């Protein structure tokens, strides 16, 4: 496992080193991949480590992105205010939804998180005075930090995102190795066993839900700044499904797997679509292929401690 960590760290450093040599379009794709990686890793906490599959994870991503958009564009708020607001919004939403969702497991958990995600999507459309509805909020300025380089340029923003991604990865890595993280894995294996051992399973799941939401929000904040634009598409079902796909592709319960899955999907979508109109078909075939030949995901196939195929549940 330590070897995997070293490899992953090496990967991050390598990416940081070659960045100045890349033309700006691949660089922006790489930035996008990093943001998606954070989003996917946050879902992995919930799915891979706690065993709760969510189809509504985009809600927290989007709520934070909207918070940044609204504050940065309408109120001209500063960077710190926006970040704090985004994280608080994501945490608050996760805390609220967690109360409703945590009692369910398996497919029912999938469904209730889907419903909650749709409610947020509906809000994004309907609350036009705040979210500008279908038009979305555009013109979000890049953050003004006291740095000698402007974050408006692709390379400085890439490094900014890389630093954020490294931070998230470190934090989540520490989390999953902590006693709390261990107990999450125990819950994933068997909730009843953990309960009989005296763990407060509900509380553990609830906290995991909120933490996952907060890190999704973290990704959402970066996304708002990166794209300069937020719209209901960021909270729609397809976005949540894509996050799930990133985790499954890379391998749930490995943390680094979902990050790789995210990068793969971002590149597949944006590179393949430049060369063929049939990129959807190719993407679909890739998903099926991966599940058939590497059912635990690309990284999961290599890791012994990845989330094993869960026992039958209702």
């Amino acid at each position, binding site marked *: 496992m330590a070897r995997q960590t070293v490899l992953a760290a090496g990967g991050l450093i390598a990416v940081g080193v070659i960045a100045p040599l890349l033309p700006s379009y691949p660089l922006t794709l790489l930035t*996008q991949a990093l943001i998606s990686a954070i989003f996917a890793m946050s879902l992995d906490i919930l799915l891979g480590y706690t065993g709760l599959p969510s189809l509504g994870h985009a809600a927290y991503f989007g709520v934070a992105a909207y918070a940044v958009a609204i504050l940065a564009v309408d109120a001209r708020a500063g960077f710190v205010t926006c970040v704090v607001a985004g994280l608080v919004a994501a945490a608050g939403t996760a805390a609220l939804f967690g109360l409703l969702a945590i009692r369910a497991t398996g497919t029912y958990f999938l469904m209730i998180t889907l419903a909650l995600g749709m409610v947020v999507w509906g809000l994004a*459309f309907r609350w036009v005075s705040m979210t500008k509805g*279908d*038009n*979305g909020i555009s013109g979000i300025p890049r953050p003004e930090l006291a740095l000698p380089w402007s974050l408006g340029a692709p390379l400085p923003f890439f490094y900014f995102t890389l630093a954020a991604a490294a931070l998230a990865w470190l934090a989540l890595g520490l989390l999953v190795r902590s006693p709390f993280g261990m107990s999450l894995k125990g819950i994933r294996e068997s909730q009843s066993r953990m309960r009989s051992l005296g763990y407060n399973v509900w509380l553990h799941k609830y906290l995991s839900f909120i933490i996952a939401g907060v890190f999704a929000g973290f990704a959402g904040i970066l996304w708002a700044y990166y794209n*300069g*634009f937020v719209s209901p598409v960021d909270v729609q079902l397809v976005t949540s499904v894509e996050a799930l796909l990133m985790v499954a592709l890379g391998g749930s319960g490995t943390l680094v797997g979902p990050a790789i899955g995210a990068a793969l999907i971002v590149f597949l979508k944006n590179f393949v*679509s*430049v060369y063929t109109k049939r990129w959807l078909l190719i993407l679909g075939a890739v998903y099926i292929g991966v599940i058939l030949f590497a059912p635990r995901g690309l990284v999961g196939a290599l890791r012994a401690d990845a989330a094993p195929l869960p026992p039958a549940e209702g």
Partner: protein
Amino acid sequence: MHHRDLRIIAAGTLLAFTAALGGPVSAPAQSGPVKIGLLVPLTGAFAAIGKDMLNGTELYLDEIGRQVAGRKIELIVEDTEGNTATALTKARKLVDQDKIHVLTGGLLASTGYALHPFADAQRIPTTYPVMASDDLTQRKPAKWVVRTGWSTSQPMHPFAEWVIKNTRFRKVVTIGMDYAFGWETVGGFQRPLEEQGGQIVQKIWTPLNTNDFAPFLAQVKRDADAVLALFVGRLALQFMKQYDEAGLRARLPLLGGGTTTDESVLPQMGDEAIGAITALHYSAAVDTPQNQKFAKAFAAKAGKITSYYSEACYTGARWVVEAVKAVGGKVEDREALLAALRKVDIKDAPRGPISVDRWGNPVQNIYVRKVEKVGGKLQNTVVATFPAVSQFWKYNPEEYLKLPLYTRDYPSCKAC
């Protein structure tokens, strides 16, 4: 071959000679192609519209032999997948990697709003042939964007006047999609209508994910004179059918925004569409030689009737080419190209004459059209033409801009 082409070839040859004789240092840059970046949805829910847009663009460029001012034209097409975030990513690719000289295309309103700051930040001359949100050229214009299509309320202002002068409809129910395109259409109709003695007696907004209009149609006030409907694409198709099935077609004449009967969906409609009266800056049935020529050429290329989307991109492509000609092909001088884009004046586009106003929006004909069956096929027969209509209609622009944008609640529904 067109005279234009001969002249271009002659000019090009002359230029080549001049360059060979040691002409201006800028000559090497001038030998590369003029690169036009086109953003269209080729996959996803709007793929059919994206295809129309692409076909329209290609038709024009092929007609001129993909050459202008002695340089080749390279069209680089990127798929927006029907979503704005992807459109932004692809726009970045076009500007940073492909080094385009002009950016064009886009379909969704959100794409228009998102590309505005992008175009200004990148200082890339940009045209919008289709995106119609009013404010893009009113209260929130961008320096580097010129609209060559239309603004949402532009056709509705004269339409309201036409309704007052040519029909007995004074109490109108509006039913439209619950987003800015719907609000601006209804607002643009409501304002002149109510100034001249008409009244909107009910406003119904359908959520964007509606596919069954029954709950809304059941609420329509039966004692009104007419219904104004604003729908796009498959929703227009379904609405027409359900309007008829609900028994409303027999009782309440149907008016509409132009997209409700646009040729992108009209062929799929049945007789239930006959009699609907709508307004737009184009109709495939506009009876001029240049439109007939265009429609024929388009049908030969695409195998279907031209919609407003394809004409928009056909003329949009011409617009860009005219601007390139005006700067003598020196597209690297972006400021000059932008200025030229704002000065293009076309007298014989398929839709009629177009020029652009100070805010970057076209001044053009508006057609009132009625759906009729001619030769066994449905068409938008032109029943009235309003020439040289601007986005402000007869209102004073400065006064107009002081008022709010048309939204869901503005103008308010006093008679509801």
